[in-house]
C-alpha cells in the first residue's frame, strides 16, 4: 500500500514545505525575520534525496504519477532551479518587503507543480499541475504590487496563459473523446492502433495539445507574453520561470509527444520543425536590438526554446539525452544570469538596462566574471555547459537528418552571441559614468552563483556522467 505513494514523495516534500512556509508566515510577527527560505531549501534537498532514492525504481503512484528516471532527472533540474531561485530571491524579498511566507510558499508550490507535471502520466494531472504552477507563477510575477509593470506583466501572462490552457484543455477533451482515457499509456496504445490513418479529430487533438505546450515553452507564435512577463517580474522570479516552467513544460511535452503520440511522429514533427526554426530565428533576431537586459534574456530564452524544440523533434538514439541535458545546462546558465540581474537590482533603480552594466568589471569583478561565464554558456562557447548542450542538440539534429534545422541553429547561435556580447562589452569595455551604483552582494547569493558557475564549467568540461544519466533517463519514456 505504501509503495503506491512512493512516486509522489519528492513532490509531496516540496508541497509540504510550502504549506509549512505558509503556516510559519501565519505565526510571524510583523517585521520578524523567519528562516523560511532555509526551510524551503531543506524541503528541496529532501525532495532531491527522495528522488535519488527513487532512481531506477520506476515507481508509480495512482497510475497517474510515475517516478521514472526521466521524471526524476527533470525533478533534479527543478530542484536545482528551486534552490538557486530561493537563494537569489532572498535579497529581493528583503529589499522589496515582499511577504516572505507567501513568496516562498508560492515558489515552492510552483516547484511542486512542476515536479508533478514532469512526472505525471495522465493528461488531466498534467493539466492540473500546469495550472498549479501557472497560477503560482502568475502571482509571483505580479508580486511587487506597487510596480505597475509587475501587475501588467502578471496580467498579460495570466490572460494569455488562461487563453492557451483553454486550447490545451480542448485538446485533452478530444484526446479523451478519441481514446476514452486521459492516461498516456492507454492513449498511446490506442493511437498506435490507428496511427496509419489518423482521423481529423486525432490531428485536432495533437494540434491543440501542441498549442498548449508551445505556449508554456514560449515558442513562436505563442511567445508574445514572454518578453513582457520577464521584464515585469522581479528578476529572481524571471529566472525561476524562464527555467523551471520551461523545464516542466518540456518534460510534459516530451512525455506526451514522445510516448503517447510517438506513433504520430510523422504528423507533428514537421510542424515542430517549423516552429523550432521560427522560434530560434525570432528569438535571436529580436534579441539583437533590446536595451533591457531582462528583455534581451527573454528573447534569448525564446531562442533557447527553439533549440530545445530541435532536441525534441530530433529525439533519437543520439538526441535522446539532448533535451534533458540542454534543459539542465540552460537552467543553470540562465538562472545564473538572472541571479546576477537580481543581485544588481536596487530599490530605486533596477539596473536592468544594458548600459547600466558599464563598468561592472571595475566595481564587481567577480560578478562581472560570473555574468560572463553565464552569458558565454548561453551563447554556446566551450568549455561551458551551453556548448556541450548545443553540440548535443545539433548532433541529434544531424543524426535525425534535420540538417537545415541544425544550420539555422548554429547560425542563430552566432547571432545570439552578438547580443550576449553586448552585455560583456558594457561590463568590460565601456568606461563607467557614475561609479558605485551597484549594491553589496549578499554572501549566500554570491556563493550560490559561484556554485552554479562551477556547475556550468563542470557540465562543460566533464559532461560524460551527466550525459549518460540524461540519455538513460529519457530512454524510460520511449
Amino acid at each position: 500500500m505504501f509503495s503506491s505513494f512512493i512516486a509522489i514523495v519528492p513532490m509531496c516534500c516540496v508541497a509540504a514545505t510550502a504549506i509549512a512556509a505558509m503556516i510559519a508566515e501565519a505565526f510571524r510577527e510583523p517585521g520578524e525575520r523567519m528562516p523560511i527560505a532555509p526551510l524551503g531549501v531543506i524541503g528541496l534537498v529532501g525532495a532531491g534525496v527522495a528522488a535519488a532514492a527513487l532512481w531506477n525504481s520506476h515507481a508509480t503512484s495512482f497510475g497517474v504519477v510515475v517516478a521514472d528516471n526521466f521524471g526524476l532527472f527533470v525533478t533534479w533540474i527543478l530542484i536545482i532551479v528551486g534552490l538557486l531561485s530561493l537563494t537569489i530571491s532572498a535579497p529581493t524579498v528583503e529589499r522589496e518587503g515582499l511577504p516572505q511566507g507567501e513568496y516562498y510558499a508560492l515558489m515552492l508550490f510552483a516547484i511542486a507543480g512542476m515536479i508533478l507535471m514532469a512526472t505525471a502520466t495522465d493528461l488531466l494531472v498534467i493539466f492540473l499541475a500546469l495550472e498549479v504552477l501557472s497560477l503560482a507563477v502568475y502571482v509571483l510575477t505580479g508580486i511587487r504590487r506597487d510596480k505597475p509593470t509587475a501587475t501588467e506583466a502578471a496580467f498579460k501572462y495570466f490572460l494569455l496563459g488562461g487563453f492557451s490552457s483553454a486550447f490545451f484543455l480542448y485538446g485533452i477533451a478530444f484526446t479523451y473523446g478519441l481514446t476514452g482515457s486521459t492516461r498516456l499509456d492507454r492513449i498511446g496504445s490506442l493511437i498506435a492502433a490507428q496511427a496509419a490513418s489518423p482521423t481529423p479529430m486525432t490531428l485536432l487533438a495533437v494540434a491543440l495539445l501542441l498549442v498548449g505546450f508551445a505556449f508554456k515553452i514560449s515558442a513562436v507564435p505563442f511567445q508574445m507574453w514572454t518578453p513582457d512577463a520577464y521584464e515585469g517580474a522581479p528578476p529572481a522570479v524571471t529566472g525561476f520561470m524562464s527555467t523551471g516552467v520551461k523545464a516542466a513544460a518540456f518534460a510534459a511535452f516530451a512525455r506526451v509527444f514522445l510516448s503517447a503520440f510517438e506513433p504520430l511522429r510523422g504528423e507533428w514533427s514537421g510542424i515542430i520543425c517549423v516552429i523550432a526554426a521560427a522560434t530560434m530565428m525570432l528569438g535571436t533576431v529580436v534579441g539583437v536590438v533590446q536595451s533591457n537586459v531582462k528583455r534581451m534574456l527573454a528573447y534569448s530564452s525564446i531562442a533557447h526554446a527553439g533549440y530545445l524544440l530541435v532536441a525534441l523533434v530530433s529525439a533519437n538514439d543520439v538526441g535522446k539525452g539532448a533535451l534533458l541535458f540542454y534543459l539542465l545546462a540552460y537552467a543553470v546558465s540562465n538562472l545564473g544570469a538572472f541571479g546576477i540581474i537580481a543581485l544588481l537590482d536596487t530599490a530605486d533603480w533596477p539596473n536592468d538596462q544594458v548600459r547600466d552594466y558599464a563598468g561592472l568589471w571595475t566595481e564587481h569583478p567577480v560578478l562581472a566574471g560570473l555574468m560572463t561565464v553565464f552569458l558565454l554558456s548561453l551563447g554556446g562557447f566551450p568549455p561551458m555547459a551551453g556548448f556541450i548542450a548545443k553540440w548535443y542538440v545539433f548532433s541529434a539534429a544531424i543524426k535525425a537528418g534535420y540538417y537545415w534545422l541544425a544550420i539555422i541553429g548554429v547560425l542563430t547561435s552566432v547571432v545570439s552571441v552578438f547580443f550576449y556580447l553586448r552585455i560583456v562589452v558594457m561590463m568590460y569595455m565601456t568606461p563607467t559614468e557614475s561609479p558605485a551604483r551597484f549594491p553589496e552582494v549578499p554572501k549566500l547569493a554570491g556563493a550560490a552563483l559561484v556554485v552554479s558557475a562551477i556547475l556550468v564549467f563542470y557540465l562543460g568540461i566533464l559532461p560524460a556522467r551527466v550525459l549518460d544519466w540524461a540519455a538513460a533517463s529519457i530512454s524510460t519514456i520511449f
Partner: protein
Amino acid sequence: MVTLIPLLPLVGFLLNASFGRRISKAAAGQVACGSMLVSFGVSAIAVWRLVSLPTESRAITQAVFTWITSGDFNVSFTLRLDPLSALMILVVTGIGSLIHIYSTAYMHEESDSEYARYFSYLNLFAAFMLVLVLGSNFLVMFVGWEGVGLCSYLLIGFWYQKPSASDAGKKAFIVNRIGDFGFILGMLLAFVRFGTLDFQEIARSLATLGPETTFGTLSMLTLLLFVGATGKSAQIPLFVWLPDAMEGPTPVSALIHAATMVTAGVYMIGRNAVLFGHAPQTLTIVAIVGTATALMAGTIALVQNDIKRVLAYSTVSQLGYMFLAMGVGAWAAGIFHLFTHAFFKALLFLGSGAVIHALAGEQDLRRMGGLKRELPITYWTFFIGALAIAGVPLLSGFFSKDEILYRTFAGGHVWLWTVGLLTSLLTAIYMFRVQFLAFHGERAQGAPQHAAPEHSAPGHLAPSNHRHLHDVPPAMAFVLVVLAIGSVLAGYVGVPGSNRLERFLEPSFTAREAAGAERAEAATDSHLEGTLMVVSTAVAMSGIGIALYFFLRHRRAADEMALRFAGVHRVLENKYYVDEIYDQAIVQPIRIVSEDGLWKGVDVRVIDGAVNGVGDIVGGGSEVLRRIQTGSVRVYAVSVLLGVVLIVGYYVWR
C-alpha cells in the same frame, strides 16, 4: 678554401655592423679593406690552383652545407670555382679591394657610425657578389643575386635623409624584384624540367639534345631567366633604375653599378651558356634587347648633363653590348667585354667621383670645365678610361668590343652589327663629350638654365667656384692609376688571334661531353676580323672627332644642333619619357586601383558592406519584428490564435 672567399667579407661585414659604432674610422676602414684584400689573396691562390689543374677537370667544388631539403627537392649550398667564376672572383675581389681603398678616402667626411655602416654594406655586397658568382646552382646564385640587390638598395639609399636617394634605392630594389619574378619562375621551370637546379647537371642533361627549334620549354625557361637578367643588368624594359641609382656614393656606383653587380645578368647567361645555347629563340631576343638597349642608352647618354648619369647610361649601353654578345652565342666575347668594362668603367666612375669630390658634390657637367689643370691625375686617368671605352685600338675596350662586333657579323646578324657599330660611334661621342666638357675649356661661372640634381653629401660644403681645387688624395690616386693600367692592359688577355681567354673559359660554356663539337665552331676568320677592326677603329675615331668638334671647338654648334632638333633633344633629355610612361601606365593605375578600387571599393564597400549588411539586415529585421510586440495583450492573443489557426489549418487542409 673557396668558402673563405665570400666568408671573409662577410666577417668584415659582421664586425663593422656589430662594432662599427664603437671603433674609429681607420679601424673600420682597415677591417673592410683588409677583409677584401685577404679575400683577393685567397682568390688569387684559388685561381692559381685552378689553373694548375688539367683543363678537363678544371673546377673546384665545395659543398658547404645542405640548405633546403624537401622531398625530391634538395639544394645544397655549394660553391664551385671554374674558369668563368675564377675570372669573376678576381674582378670582384680585385676591383672590390681597389674601390674599398678608394672609399676610405672618398667617404672620409662621414661620421664614424655612418662610415662603418658604409663599409659594412660594401663588405656585405662583396660577400653576396662572391656567392653569386661562386654558386653552383641557381638557388645559391639567387642568394647572391638578391643579396647584392639588397646591398645595392642600402647603398643607393645610403644618404637616406635625402628623399631622392631613398626613392632611388627603393626603385632599384623593386625593379630588380620584377626581374627576380622572372628569375624565380625560370628556376621553378628549370627544376620541373630538369629535376635539379645545379648548373652542371642541367648542362649535362642537355648535352645530348639538340637546340630547341620552336619556342618550347627551354625557350620559356631561358626567357624567364633573361627577364631576371634584364632587371639586374638594367636592360630594356627594366633599365630605369640604374640611372637613378647614381644617388648613391660614387664608389658604390663604380663597384656595384658598373663593375660587378650589373653584370650579373651577363654572367648568369654565361654560366648557363649551354642552356641558352639550346634556346636559339631566346638568344635572338637577348641579342635584340641587348642591341636596342645599347642604342637607346647611348642616345640618352649624349644629352645628359649629370656626369654620373652619362656614365650610368653608358653602363647600360655597354651592358647591352654584352647581351648582344650573349645573344649571338659569343659567350667568351661577352665575358671578355664584362671583364674589360669592369676596369674602364670603374675607372671612369672613380674619376668622376674624384671630380665630384673635388667640386664638393657638383655633378653638373655644365658647371665644370677646365679641370685638366687642377686635377691632372684625374684627368689623365679619366682620359685613358674614355679612350678605352670608346674603342681606341690597343686599349682594352677595343679588343673586347671588337670581338663582339666581329662575332655578331660573323654570325650573320648584319643589322645588329650595324646598330652595334652606330652605338660604338655614340659611345665615343658621349664619352668625349664628358671628357671635353669636364676637363677642357673654362669653368662655367653662371648657374645653368635648369638645375641639375644637386648632390651634396652630408659634410660637403656647398659648391664654391672660387675655391682652389685639390687633386685626389693618395689613396684615390693609387686606385685610379691601378685601374688605368688595368684599362689599358686588360684587353691583352684576349687579343684576337690568341683567344687565350676564350680557351680558358671554354669549359664553363660547354657541357663536358660536347666540348669537342663546340670547339670546331669557334674557328675564326682572321681576315674578316681584321677588316671589321679597321671599320670600328674608324668609327671610334670619327666619334672622338665629332665630340671634338661639337664640345671642344664649337660648343655653340652643339647648342644649335640641340635647338634644331629640339624635339629629339627633349625626348632624349627626358630619357624617352620611360619613367613617366611607367609611372602613368603602371605605377599610378596600380595605386589608384589599389586605393580606390580594391581597398575603399572592394574591401570596405563590397566585402565589409556585405558583412555589415548582414548585420544591418538582422538589426533591421529585429527592429521590424519587435514592433509586433505592441504591448497590447489583445494583439498577443491574436498571435496565439493565429498560431492555432495555422496549425489546425495545416492538419485540416493539408
